[in-house]
């Protein structure tokens, strides 16, 4: 029986051991927001970590008692009877460091100054996130995850887990992801960042003190991002050349439905997301390359891996195309890891990883059931 995990509660973990970032910066103390669903079994072998993508957070599934409309971002995947079955697994979702949903980030008050970190929040990398997630795992008493799961930027964290802590993760599920971004992908991020950085309300990242937010920049960044998350076909199907009015107005106001949709998405996003967090997240995407110090050789980078892998891509995803997922598969084959790769025929572009699909869910059910039979054996 498929259902919701129901009412969930966000929790806060406090860490007082300084975290040294890859950049050399040190965060003396920090907090992480997280949620858990299901029950950790006696030998603590059934834990699954969900890593979020650019705009995600700890609220993965279920809803809040005081906000029943606030449903978790991956509620179709996580819950009783769902592929990541909370009757079988103990599922952990968190808001990454640098985020804007309660974990320590640019909008948090720096206890040393009494002001928001703003521009002083260190640039963070996927490696730093995994480090902080490992401390959260320690805090929860989880020595080894049955699986670390993530889509897009979340998939990079899942991969990094298996490289930084080979003994602490049995399975990696990297969905709609890549081992590192291409120049084109970095270019999109750069334009998005420039939209924010050049917004007059940005104030070098310390806009909080000025009582403003760089809404225009953030909105543009999201609009651009959103275009790249959809497929050409999906956009054509949904909007085509539909106009809001009967005829052309021969001006620069919103006329086409797609313009209206993008503005709506941009406004919605800019109303709740923090621009500094957006900058940090896109930069983390750009920097991630497990082979950076290995002459770009991914085969060498994955030599440390001990996990089994499931890699999933979607045919119409051009931001993280199937070819990028194959770049994950190849070094795993080279290093003779157990790996399965599914290429899902889907019309929805990069966003496909968040949507239900028969083959996608069939693969996820099958793989997670195998994991469950392993950890319950």
């Amino acid at each position, binding site marked *: 029986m498929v259902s919701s995990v129901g009412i969930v509660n966000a929790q806060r973990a406090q860490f007082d051991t300084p975290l040294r970032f890859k950049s050399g910066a040190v965060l003396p103390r920090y907090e992480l927001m997280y949620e858990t669903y299901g029950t950790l079994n006696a030998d603590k072998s059934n834990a699954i970590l969900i890593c979020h993508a650019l705009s995600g957070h700890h609220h993965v599934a279920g809803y809040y008692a005081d906000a029943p409309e606030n449903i978790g971002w991956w509620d179709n995947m996580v819950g009783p009877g769902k592929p990541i079955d909370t009757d079988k697994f103990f599922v952990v979702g968190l808001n990454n460091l640098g985020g804007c949903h309660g974990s320590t980030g640019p909008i948090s008050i720096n206890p040393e100054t009494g002001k928001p970190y703003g521009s002083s929040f260190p640039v963070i990398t996927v490696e730093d996130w995994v480090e902080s997630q490992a401390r959260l795992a320690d805090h929860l008493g989880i020595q080894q995850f049955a699986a670390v799961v993530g889509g897009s930027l979340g998939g990079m964290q899942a991969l990094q887990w298996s490289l930084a802590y080979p003994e602490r993760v049995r399975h990696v599920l990297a969905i709609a992801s890549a081992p590192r971004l291409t120049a084109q992908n970095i270019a999109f991020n750069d334009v998005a960042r420039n939209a924010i950085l050049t917004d007059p309300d940005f104030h070098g990242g310390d806009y909080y003190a000025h009582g403003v937010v760089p809404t225009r920049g953030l909105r543009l960044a999201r609009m651009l991002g959103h275009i790249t998350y959809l497929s050409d076909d999906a956009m054509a199907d949904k909007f085509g050349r539909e106009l809001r009015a009967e005829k052309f107005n021969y001006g620069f106001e919103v006329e086409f439905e797609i313009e209206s949709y993008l503005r709506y998405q941009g406004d919605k996003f800019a109303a709740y997301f923090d621009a500094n967090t957006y900058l940090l997240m896109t930069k983390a995407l750009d920097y991630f390359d497990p082979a950076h110090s290995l002459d770009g050789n991914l085969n060498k980078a994955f030599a440390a891996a001990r996990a089994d892998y*499931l890699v999933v891509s979607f045919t119409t995803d051009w931001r993280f195309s199937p070819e990028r997922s*194959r770049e994950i598969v190849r070094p795993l084959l080279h290093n003779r890891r157990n*790996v*399965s*790769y599914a*290429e899902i*025929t889907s019309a929805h572009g990069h966003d496909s990883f968040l949507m239900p699909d028969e083959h996608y869910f069939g*693969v996820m059910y099958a*793989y997670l059931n*195998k994991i469950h039979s392993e950890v319950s054996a």
Partner: protein
Amino acid sequence: MNAMLVTRPDFAAIAEWIPQGASVLDLGCGDGSLLQYLKSERAVRGYGVEISDAGIVACIKNGVNVIQNDLDSGLSDFESNSFDYVILSQTLQATRHTEPLIQEMLRVGRQGIVSFPNFGYWRARLDVLLGNMPVSKDLPYQWYDTPNVHLCTLDDFEKLCREHRVQIQERRVMTGDDEVHVLPNLLGSMAVYRFQREA
């Protein structure tokens, strides 16, 4: 042997050729039952390549590593000489780019193994002689719904190998579960070959 395993007559023949612990790539692996069989019989370390969605899910359920890919787009995900054996079991006749695929098999693997239905089998010949496309246990499709585009006889396959400097190491010809030794191209309904590049 796992009693639940569904096996085909060519499975046992293939398993006999494969030493314990070998690395195996199974092209067109379907639900992964051959790899599962080879894992239990020979403790092979293997991967399957399969194009169908149903096959991918079945392989994962069967605990078999599987890569979703179209064989006709080549084996570019696989490094040269990275497997002991590359198997093409009952799939050769359904591949479009058959010639380059055989070359690819011998790039990726030290040896290749193929099994395919023999179109020279007397019943097939008789069907054609009587004016119909053959339909049988080994060729279960109607002409209009068959995935088979490159059917051949044993002689045809051996000629292709000679022309491409592919050296046949061993051959087993079967009809059902019985091995055929006399007039194989006429009396065998199915064949399994093991081959490698000419030195």
